[in-house]
């Protein structure tokens, strides 16, 4: 399970709307616990794939280093990433899978149709290495002023 505040949930969806028709991307900072990744902050990142930003994203390692330093100062870890799929399903693609290397992290994907965020799903990258890694559907729990709402999985 990935747990995040309603404001963070809104922020990552709004990011996808702002960058439409290009993909947005960002980092989830928080804590990994026995019951999942608890997000405490989202950090926007630039998409360096300006050659194909409508269907590709990449976060520059330099930016990841900076965000990791920021996380350490806050006592947090990188617990996941988010990106958008403009006019495409909120499901992981083969490219997403091939390029996923942060085992134990949550990968949140938002479908943005015609500039409007419609569906947000999360996938947990599990396994022990590149050979046996896999994405698992992951419930999203949204906290609203102390109230926890378990989002029903959005289906395409």
């Amino acid at each position, binding site marked *: 399970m990935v747990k995040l505040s309603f404001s963070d949930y809104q922020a990552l969806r709004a990011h996808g709307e702002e960058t439409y028709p290009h*993909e947005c*991307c960002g*980092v989830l900072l928080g804590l*990994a616990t026995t019951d999942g990744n608890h997000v405490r902050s989202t950090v926007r990142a630039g998409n360096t*794939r300006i050659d*194909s930003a409508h*269907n*590709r*994203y*990449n*976060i520059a*390692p*330099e930016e*990841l*280093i900076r965000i*990791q330093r920021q996380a*350490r100062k806050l006592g947090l*870890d*990188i*617990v996941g*990433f988010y*990106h958008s*799929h*403009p*006019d*495409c*399903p909120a*499901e*992981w*693609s*083969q*490219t*997403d*899978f*091939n*390029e*996923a*290397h*942060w*085992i*134990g*992290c949550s*990968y949140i*994907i938002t479908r943005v149709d015609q500039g409007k965020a419609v569906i947000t799903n999360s996938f947990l990258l599990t396994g022990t*290495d*590149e050979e046996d890694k896999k994405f698992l559907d992951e419930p999203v729990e949204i906290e609203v002023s102390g109230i926890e709402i378990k989002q029903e999985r959005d289906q395409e």
Partner: protein
Amino acid sequence: MKINIPTPLRAYTGGEQTVNVPGATVGDALAALTVAYPELRQHLYTGDGKLRSFVNLYLNDDDIRYLPQKEATPVEDSDELSVIPSIAGGCRCCCR
């Protein structure tokens, strides 16, 4: 020198976010790291000893691939080496 370990690799450093290793060069420090934590080796290097393509190594703010001396670059105790796997992807409407 200090080496920063990313979240997915901390399972192989006993949960440590940062580890201190001896070494006069980046290569020495990496060798010391994989001696201290042998399970890390297969996650950093391919079977023939090459750094995995998705693993980035930064000495402070510099990608070691672009340093003139690469892994032979001298380091000081105050330097930081960060291991940072790449993050990328995207949809071509060919999901799953």
